[in-house]
């Protein structure tokens, strides 16, 4: 043990203090993931209640007011408390390792970010304990519905404060990960030797530091509107809020996508035994994508009649070009490789197939004549669940199955992993595909119920069955987690023959990550070490 680690070990807090006050980026990341997992289960249970209600037209399993709280909290949970924090947590854990750093930049700040998100979540959920219930104006909180007249009650205030805290927390996490890449890279780790995953985190964090302050401001203004008035109550007030919201709200879609794309890229390269193909085009595409994402927000506003639709249609549709490059490079990596279909690779392939459906329907939504019809309908619900659940969550599972041996030193069960994949794949498509048809047939989103005369019931039942299959898939995953940690099957330091520096250290890595680093001469230093450098 080096002097540095010995001193740190002696000073390290123990017990409860260690649990709340660790400054080890790896532990902080696990804590963020743990909190997100709890919120994920809560948000998922809420979804099951909603799906149960919608299986039957005119159902009153929960009342309309409760239903409105539930869908608001489902969306808010998944976006503010689950997918965004987990996306950033991947960076908090892996970026210092991938760039060969001993620690993250600003570990205390990072820890603070985590606790802000937890505080935000608890604040948001505490709304259920108030007279009027939790926030119920949707995860977007449009004014004037979210103003004091539209939604009276403390629950709505708690929702706003919760979002504000979680947004601050996410902002802080993004900033420390970005600073780590910029300032803490090991000797030899130039920006053009940064692993693909770390590059996706750079693009992600650039967006995070640009957009989350806008969300914080929007929430602060909303709070001021509710208690002081006069902020959004002019004729232009509502549209101003919508602009502010989506200026955050669209780029955050890519915040919740890029890290998982990066994880999938790493998994695909490793399980194809190939160096990543098209490294530089991919980086350029990521940066163009991140920049472009800042100019597309008003495609959420085509039906308002108050934005220049053609401009936002142009910028939004043009994002198909960098997205196309990303697919080209990932498929190019697999091409000519030696592919093993282990669980991480299955999830990576699931991500590619299903995200494509989200992406292609996204191109359709970028066209106002199509958007005029399906905006605000279940088509949209299907679309963004294909990106966020069928896409990002499958990418997350690829990441979990891939990096679990690094984080814990043991494998997750392969058989249960495959079962987990099959259940999720079947459940996801059963749940969300019917929603495209429902939306096209005229089913509005955010409805607590629908009349039987609409003929929507059949597809809604399919969707509800799918939701419970998803739930069984998640249960299998949790079982796998528990079993694998109890009855441990040691994985060694580098079970997959990884390409990047995190596989050059022990599993789990020591407090300061590395005792020694291999030479870094490309974006795949361990591949170089094993197979020789590329000419």
């Amino acid at each position, binding site marked *: 043990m080096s002097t540095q680690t010995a001193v740190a070990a002696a000073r390290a807090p123990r017990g409860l203090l260690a649990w709340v006050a660790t400054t080890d980026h790896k532990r902080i990341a696990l804590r963020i993931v743990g909190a997100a997992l709890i919120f994920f289960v809560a948000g998922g249970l809420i979804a099951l209640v909603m799906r149960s209600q919608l299986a039957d037209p005119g159902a009153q399993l929960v009342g309309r007011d409760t239903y409105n709280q539930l869908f608001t909290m489902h969306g808010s949970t998944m976006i503010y408390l689950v997918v965004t924090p987990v996306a950033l947590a991947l960076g908090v854990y892996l970026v210092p390792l991938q760039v060969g750093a001993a620690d993250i930049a600003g570990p205390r700040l990072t820890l603070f970010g985590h606790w802000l998100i937890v505080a935000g979540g608890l604040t948001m959920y505490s709304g259920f304990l108030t007279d009027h219930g939790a926030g119920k104006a949707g995860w977007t909180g449009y004014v004037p519905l979210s103003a004091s007249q539209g939604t009276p009650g403390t629950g709505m205030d708690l929702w706003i404060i919760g979002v504000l805290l979680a947004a601050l927390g996410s902002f802080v996490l993004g900033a420390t990960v970005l600073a780590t890449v910029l300032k803490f890279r090991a000797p030899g780790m130039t920006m053009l030797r940064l692993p693909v995953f770390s590059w996706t985190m750079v693009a992600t964090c650039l967006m995070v530091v640009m957009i989350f302050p806008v969300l914080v401001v929007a929430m602060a203004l909303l709070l001021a509107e509710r208690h002081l008035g006069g902020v959004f109550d002019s004729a232009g007030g509502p549209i101003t809020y919508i602009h502010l919201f989506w200026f955050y709200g669209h780029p955050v879609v890519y915040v919740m996508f890029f890290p998982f794309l990066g994880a999938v890229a790493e998994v695909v390269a490793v399980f194809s035994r190939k160096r990543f193909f098209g490294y530089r085009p991919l980086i350029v595409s990521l940066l163009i994508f991140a920049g472009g994402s800042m100019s597309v927000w008003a495609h959420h506003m085509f039906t308002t009649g108050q934005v220049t639709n053609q401009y936002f249609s142009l910028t939004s549709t043009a994002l198909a070009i960098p997205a196309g490059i990303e697919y080209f490079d990932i498929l190019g990596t697999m091409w000519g490789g030696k592919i093993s279909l282990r669980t991480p690779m299955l999830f990576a392939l699931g991500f590619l197939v299903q995200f494509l459906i989200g992406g292609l329907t996204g191109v359709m939504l970028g066209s106002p004549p199509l958007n*005029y019809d399906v905006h605000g309908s279940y088509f949209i619900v299907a679309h963004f669940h294909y990106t966020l659940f069928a896409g990002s969550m499958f990418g997350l599972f690829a990441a979990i199955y891939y990096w679990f041996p690094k984080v814990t030193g043991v494998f997750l069960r392969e058989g249960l992993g495959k079962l987990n994949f099959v259940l999720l794949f079947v459940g996801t498509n059963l749940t969300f595909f019917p929603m495209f048809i429902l939306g096209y047939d005229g089913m509005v989103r955010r409805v607590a119920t629908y009349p039987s005369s609409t003929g929507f019931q059949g597809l809604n039942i399919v969707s509800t069955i799918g939701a419970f299959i998803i739930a069984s898939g998640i249960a299998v995953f949790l079982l796998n987690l528990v079993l694998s940690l109890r009855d441990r099957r040691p994985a060694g330091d580098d079970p997959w023959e990884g390409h990047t520096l995190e596989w050059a250290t022990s599993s789990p890595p020591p407090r300061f990550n590395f005792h020694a680093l291999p030479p870094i001469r490309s974006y795949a230093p361990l591949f170089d070490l094993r197979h020789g450098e590329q000419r």
Partner: protein
Amino acid sequence: MKSTQSDFQHVASLYGPIALAVFVIVIGTILFIVVRFRRRDDELPRQRTGWPLGEAIYVLLVAAIVALLLETTFTTEANEDKVQADPGLRVQVTAFQWGWRFTYVGQRVSVLGDNTQPPILGVPTNTTVQFTGTSLDVIHSFWVPALRFKRDLFPKRETSFDLTFDRPGLNLGECAEFCGLHHADMTFNVLSLTPRDFASWLSDRRRPRVPGGRRR
């Protein structure tokens, strides 16, 4: 005469097949790769880390598709957004929590309904009907799925759009922007009538003749 359905169909008939083709090609490629390049031995595959020419051609191809899509979108949308100076009929739409009032401008006819009893919006077929809409409280959205068109209605603002109804019949209208407690029930019915039937429908509801009730 413009029709929002045919505008939608025009664009969808381009986007749909292209999306399907891209999907089939990408999925086909992935399946091919997974079958063809399965790991069968421990030998390291040939490492190729880029194909600049191929990728450049591919990017140009994607850009060309994007340009094609946008060209159709732009021309169609320009047509769809146009409002006529002298439409055949003007209807003022007032949305509120949780109902609608449709006022037939210059006709002394107004129809009102809410979530307990949705109103009927009578319209003549093959006539340009110009809607001018606003909201009394929160944001609502006027959606007729059969027409493939919606427009959001904001408080303190007016927005106008032209619609045509090509055949007689009854269609569902819905509020498509979440607006609170009874959002799910904020519907209306669109009754499209031949111009002659519409004229009598309208005169039945003209104010001085029919006192009381919901017909004001």
